[in-house]
Structures are given as structure tokens and as C-alpha cells.
């Protein structure tokens, strides 16, 4: 499963505890997600 597919599957999961727990157990998703989050750069950051 690609990260994009994982993101699509995770849409709305934060609002349902059971699914949230399943996703939390998927360390690969969370690890990759954290790595992606760290790469996020605001477009405005380049030209503030």
C-alpha cells in the first residue's frame, strides 16, 4: 500500500475511535506520515 492509499483509507478515521486504534497500530503509516509532515514546507515560507 502506498502512503497515498493509506492516507485515502485514513480519511475520517480520527472521528471514529475503533478505526483510529487500528491505524495507530500501523506503525508504518504513522512513521511515514511523520516523515512527510516533517517535509511540509509552507509555500509562503519561501516568499513570506
Amino acid at each position: 500500500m502506498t502512503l497515498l492509499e493509506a492516507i485515502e483509507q485514513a480519511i475520517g478515521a480520527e472521528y471514529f475511535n475503533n478505526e483510529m486504534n487500528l491505524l495507530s497500530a500501523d506503525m508504518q503509516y504513522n512513521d511515514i506520515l511523520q516523515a512527510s509532515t516533517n517535509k511540509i514546507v509552507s509555500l509562503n515560507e519561501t516568499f513570506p
Partner: protein
Amino acid sequence: MHKLFVVGSGIKTVAHITEETRRVIQNADKVLYLVNENNLKRWIAREAKDSESLDAIYFSSNKRIDTYHQITTYIVNQYKKVTSLCVVFYGHPTVFADSALKAVKLINSTGGDAVVLPAISSMDCLFSDLQIDPGDQGFFSIDATELLIYVRPIDARSHVVLWQISSLGTYDSTYTQKVNVLVDYLKKYYIEDHPICIYEAALYPTQKPRIEWTTLIYLISTKISSISSLYIPPIPQGKISSKYLTLLGMDIGNFQLSSQPDTPSK
């Protein structure tokens, strides 16, 4: 006959794309995009018939005004080459992204056909996550640097949001060292203990937004990132004008008062 659609992807990756926007991306002859998340880029490339990133243009110049002009020009040129062109921006396509809006106005002013579709901005996320109603006591938002350099007055009785506080007074990608100047400015309107909130919307499904409450005096020592916004809750509403109630023919007994937030006033 050509048509331009300017759309926004929302803030939370893929999750905030409206059904309307998805259909336009899928059906347009070509899709241009300027978004800040790689998975969103992959999603657009997967869904569109033909897509192209605007990153190369965006990062081609050191001057923001030149870059925006180049993007506008490129959009207009591409519009003339295909029957339907879609341009995707991160968040809402007309919020802090005027190059697309200029293209829309330019095309429409010359008899063309360009539309902007609504999308979820960070402001919408803030309203939801902080559970505030901008219709209750009003709402004022402004870029933090613009607030100071134009000495814009603040209506402290309204909800206030300051954008781009991390780039306050900077010209490049460095973070501001001038938060103390902003705090001094805000102290003209609020007491030092007035609550404030550093807000960052969630960028991915399952993530939570950053909601960090503190007080005005501690803003200087609060961590601020490139996507941080500053929310300031309103001081209590003032007295109702009997003059204008009379002029409007309103009965004070039937007038629904705004709620009174539990915040001290200066």
C-alpha cells in the same frame, strides 16, 4: 471556447477535496497545480488526464511579485491552449494566492470564461477546531506584518486572527525575531493576561491540529512555525446603542445579544 477552473485542495491532504473539485480535476483537459504536499501531487497526477506542477515557476525567482506575475501569465497562456484548464492551489485558491485570482479577472475582463470554486481554507479549519462563530461579535483577520506596517486598528470586541506570524518583518525564509514588536502592538488593545492561541490545522487524516493556548505576554516564548496562525478571542461586547435601536425600529427585548466570552477587557 475555453474555460478556466481555479480550485483549492483544502488543508488536510486529499481529505478536504470537495466532490465538485474532484470532478473538475478529473474532467479538465489539463490540470496545473501548486501544492505543498507530495501525496497530494501524486493524487492530482493520478486523477487528472494531464497535469503539470507550477513548482518550477514558483521557485524560479527570488522576488515574490515576479513569481506571481509569471504564474498568472502561464495560466492565461495555458488557458488559450486547451478547452478546459483547471488550476489547483493548496487550501482555498483565493486565500493568500492572488496569482490565480488575477488570471481569473484578466480572462473574464477580456470576454473569457473563468470561475473560482470554493474550498476549505485554514480559516475554516480554525473556526471548526476552536469552535468559534465569526458571526458572534464579528471577525477581523490580517497578515501580521500588514497589521503593523499600516498601523491597522484592531476591534478587540471581534474575533481576531493574524496570519503568517512566523514571517513577521522578514523578506526571506528566515523566521521572525520580532514577535516582541507584535506583542507591544497588541498590548495597546489587550491586557497582558489576555488569552491567545497558536493554531495550526491538521495536515493529514488522523492527525490533530495544534491548539496551544497561552497569554499575550507569553507569545514571545511560544513556538511559532511557518503554518502558525494567532487567534485572539474577543473582549466582552459593548453596550447596545439606543440611538441606532430607535433608528432601526428595533425592540431591545427582541434583540438577541451576542454571548459574552469570559475574557477580561483592557
